């Protein structure tokens, strides 16, 4: 069968062979990206652990208020954004396009709120004299270096995710994307949430004064 004979409902390659995973290529690619990115964050967290265990003068900088309180609020916001993302995908799968868009935009707004809270936390630390290579409390300068590296990479993922969600919302509204695209984007968004599930206890709670 030539490519011009292929039914229009099928995507290129789809008619040739069914995937052994039972999912579309875009979703498999997202899973592969997630696994690679999980290894990256895993390596970063192990690096942080290595430097922490190897440093005799590690300090614990975080007070309950404002740092931990802020981090708890950030955690709740991000977890809730995963729920709204699921609601968006469910609405899209049910063919309720307007409701899906509403949940998708709400997810992006929650992601933005997380980023704003995160930046507020960073600027508070900057005011206290913290920098990636400076420790105002004395002791190892690696405290700031590891904190800003890990949370910075995660923040980059959140900001990228918010931009991606908004772009997807625009194209979904125009009818150029479907529920499957939203589900794939949702995978990424849940992964960002999943990484935070390790960053919050290991980087924040383990550094409480």
């Amino acid at each position, binding site marked *: 069968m030539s490519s011009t004979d292929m039914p229009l409902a099928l995507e290129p390659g789809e008619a040739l062979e069914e995937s*052994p*995973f039972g999912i579309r290529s875009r979703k498999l690619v997202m899973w592969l990206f997630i696994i690679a990115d999980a290894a990256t964050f895993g390596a970063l967290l*192990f690096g942080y*652990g290595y430097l*922490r265990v190897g440093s005799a003068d590690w300090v614990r900088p975080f007070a309950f208020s404002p740092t931990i309180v802020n981090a708890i609020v950030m955690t709740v916001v991000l977890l809730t954004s995963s729920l709204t993302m699921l609601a968006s995908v469910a609405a899209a*799968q049910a063919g309720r396009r307007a409701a899906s868009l509403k949940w998708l935009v709400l997810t992006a707004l929650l992601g933005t709120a997380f980023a704003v809270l995160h930046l507020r936390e960073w600027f508070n630390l900057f005011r206290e004299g913290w920098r990636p290579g400076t420790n105002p409390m004395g002791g190892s300068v690696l405290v700031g270096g590891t904190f800003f590296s890990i949370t910075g990479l995660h923040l980059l993922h959140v900001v990228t995710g918010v931009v991606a969600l908004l772009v997807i919302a625009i194209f979904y509204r125009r009818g150029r994307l479907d529920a499957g695209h939203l*589900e794939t984007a949702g995978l990424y968004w849940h992964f960002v949430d999943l990484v935070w*599930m390790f960053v919050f206890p290991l980087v924040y709670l383990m550094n409480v004064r």
Partner: protein
Amino acid sequence: MNDTPESAGVPRTRVYVVVWLGLLLIVATEVTLTYAHLSPGKLLAALLGLALLEAGLAVMYFMHLKYERRILFWSLIPGLIFVLLMLNQLWFDAIRLRTLHP
């Protein structure tokens, strides 16, 4: 456009809400344990265990891995676990480094 779900048997909204509440409960437990004056080793073990539980719930329910074909799970997760286990070789050198400091 195809609006059909790509995962077979995806859970209902109620399941998502229950998992979300469970995740919030785990976060509350983590914070409570942090201020329970545990030794650093015990606190780390508890926080890691709870984080793994959270991650498992998120991957299985929010990311639908529980509802995909098993081959997807077995193709993705064991390799990642292997890589993360191999990284544990770092600790011996980290402890050695610590003993080098005065």
